[in-house]
């Protein structure tokens, strides 16, 4: 059983729900990313580590700016995996790389599967990899005990939900609405409907993300899903901080607030 599956099984046993924070690797720098992972691990079920990309078409302005800050430092996947490996020495929290496909493709998919396993990465989510194209990559990752996480959206047809259910492992990420990442005042009612549709096809835990920024939204998602993902609101805390140390303490405080509901 993968570390992600184990973590969710334990959560379910304890009758608890999960919290999945997202941060962009290298924002504000990789050393702080390691500290943020360790800090977030105290509240998180799984941590999503964003791989910065020049053309982040699924992301709203907050995460776009984080990607730009990270890219200016000129590191790549090798350094992100090193950071992940260093964090792994300090925590057992599952880490999921959240990436666009091109940086992974240029790095080399087989090499990535091998090195990600060494670095203690537990899952990879590729925003722009359609399930039809994912078979070979999923098999490579499976051989290295890494879960391939898929996104589904309110617009996903039953046929596609079934296809994702066949290929996914770890958990399924349900996007709460159409559009890009970013905080919203109201959560859409569509996401609850989507989660119940996903459950018709898969027994995997379902996490809901996109637009969640407040404790009451997290609590609401916990009514019907297994975990809530918070990205832009956390990245926004990092952006507001005047120093790396302040970023870590702000994010820790904010994470505890989010799960207090």
């Amino acid at each position, binding site marked *: 059983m993968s570390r992600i599956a184990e973590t969710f099984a334990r959560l379910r046993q304890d009758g608890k729900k999960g919290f999945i924070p997202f941060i962009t690797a290298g924002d504000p720098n990789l050393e702080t990313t390691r500290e943020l992972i360790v800090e977030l691990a105290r509240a998180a079920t799984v941590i999503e580590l964003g791989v910065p*990309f*020049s*053309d982040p078409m699924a992301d709203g302005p907050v995460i776009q700016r984080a990607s730009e800050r990270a*890219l200016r430092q000129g590191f*790549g*996947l090798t350094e992100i995996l090193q950071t992940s490996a260093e964090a792994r020495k300090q925590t057992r929290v599952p880490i999921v790389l959240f990436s666009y496909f*091109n*940086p*992974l*493709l*240029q*790095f080399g998919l087989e090499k990535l599967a091998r090195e990600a396993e060494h670095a203690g990465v537990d899952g990879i989510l590729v925003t722009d990899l359609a399930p039809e194209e994912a078979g070979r990559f999923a098999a490579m990752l499976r051989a290295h005990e890494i879960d391939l996480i898929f996104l589904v959206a309110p617009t996903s047809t039953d046929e596609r939900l079934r296809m994702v259910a066949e290929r996914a492992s770890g958990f399924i990420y349900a996007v709460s609405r159409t559009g890009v990442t970013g905080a919203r005042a109201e959560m859409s009612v569509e996401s609850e409907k989507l989660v119940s549709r996903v459950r018709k096809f898969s027994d995997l835990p379902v996490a809901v993300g996109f637009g969640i920024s407040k404790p009451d939204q997290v609590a609401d998602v916990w009514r019907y899903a297994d975990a809530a993902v918070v990205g832009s609101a956390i990245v926004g805390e990092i952006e507001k901080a005047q120093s790396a140390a302040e970023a870590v303490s702000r994010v820790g405080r904010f994470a505890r607030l989010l799960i207090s509901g």
Partner: protein
Amino acid sequence: MSYVLQDERGQIATTHSISAGLDYPSIGPEHAFLHDSGRVEYTSVSDDEALGAFQMLSKLEGIIPALESAHAVAHALKVAREMKSEQVLIINLSGRGDKDIDTVREQVGSANK
């Protein structure tokens, strides 16, 4: 799959072209396939060459080519010089240039000042 202007880490490069339709770091997969199969030879021309061809075709034929198509005209001018007079050369003007008048006026106008 297609060709993309990118660095070794897979980050997409920023681009420049005087024509909006070419100012993009990738190419349609059909072109990538035609390139790989060797059926089409792809080449490039500069902004200035395209602008020159745009003006030449407008003046000599009264046909205003799109700036994208003006690139083809510019390359055709180079190829034609190597050809025999009885040989025929066809240019596909994929778009009209009245949409580009403002861009050309800006560029050519500033060069004439």
